[in-house]
């Protein structure tokens, strides 16, 4: 009985379907983190970005316009989409994530919260 419920739960999760792992660059500076991801072949409306708790999920479906009756003879990109998941850390402000998607390159900017940004502390000399 309990095994059955586990099995049905597994089939419902979309995580199980195979997807390509897009290459990324992650660069941190004092004000936040910038993430660049290569998602060629994904149209803007087919890109899905989600932040749940401290998990960032990048998903995209390939949308190529293939001519009718085309037979593939060589395929290096052979899966229908991309997926990559990152765990964010607490000092990042997930409310203020900004994203830009241009020619297959996603640029995500995740700023740090105001408290987490470095401050110069003035030393008072008595």
């Amino acid at each position, binding site marked *: 009985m309990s095994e059955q419920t586990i099995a049905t739960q597994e089939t419902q999760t979309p995580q199980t379907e195979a*997807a390509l*792992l897009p*290459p*990324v660059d992650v660069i941190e500076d004092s004000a936040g983190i910038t993430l660049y991801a290569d998602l*060629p072949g994904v149209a803007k409306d087919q890109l899905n970005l989600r932040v749940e708790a401290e998990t960032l999920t990048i998903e995209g479906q390939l949308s190529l316009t293939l001519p009718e009756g085309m037979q593939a003879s060589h395929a290096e990109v052979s899966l229908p989409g991309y997926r990559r998941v990152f765990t964010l850390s607490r000092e990042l402000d997930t409310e203020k994530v900004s994203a830009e998607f241009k020619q297959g390159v996603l640029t995500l900017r995740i700023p740090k919260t105001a408290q987490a940004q470095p401050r110069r502390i003035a030393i008072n000399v008595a």
Partner: protein
Amino acid sequence: MYRALFPRDVFAELDRLQREMQEAFAFSPTIRGFGRGGFPALNVGATPQSVEIYAFAPGLDPAGVEVHLERGVLSLSGERKSTLAASNEKTIAHINERFVGRFRRVVSLPDDIDPNTVTANYRDGVLHVSVKRRESAQPRRISIQ
């Protein structure tokens, strides 16, 4: 590993099968594949009228991409600039996986293509090159008089 252009090759089929098994069980298959390919990844397909090449090359300036067709060999070359260029001592690159630098990939095309009818367009980071086949080589229905 490598997926051959000739699907009837038994060894290539075995190779492909093994690779697909690996991909099916791997935690996360990579876009660059298992040592084959490189940048950009290529998909090649054919219709009775044309040969279609898709190069997955995101973030390029289309003006800087060279597409050449010479003696039935199509070559794609160009350069991708680094996004880390603006970095200084205060920035840290935690992950650096994206391709940077000059690239060149070559595809040999079938004999019946017409080199004068090549079209190339760049959309969503995919360079799509379409080469028409010669009229004389296309299948034709012959009517009986």
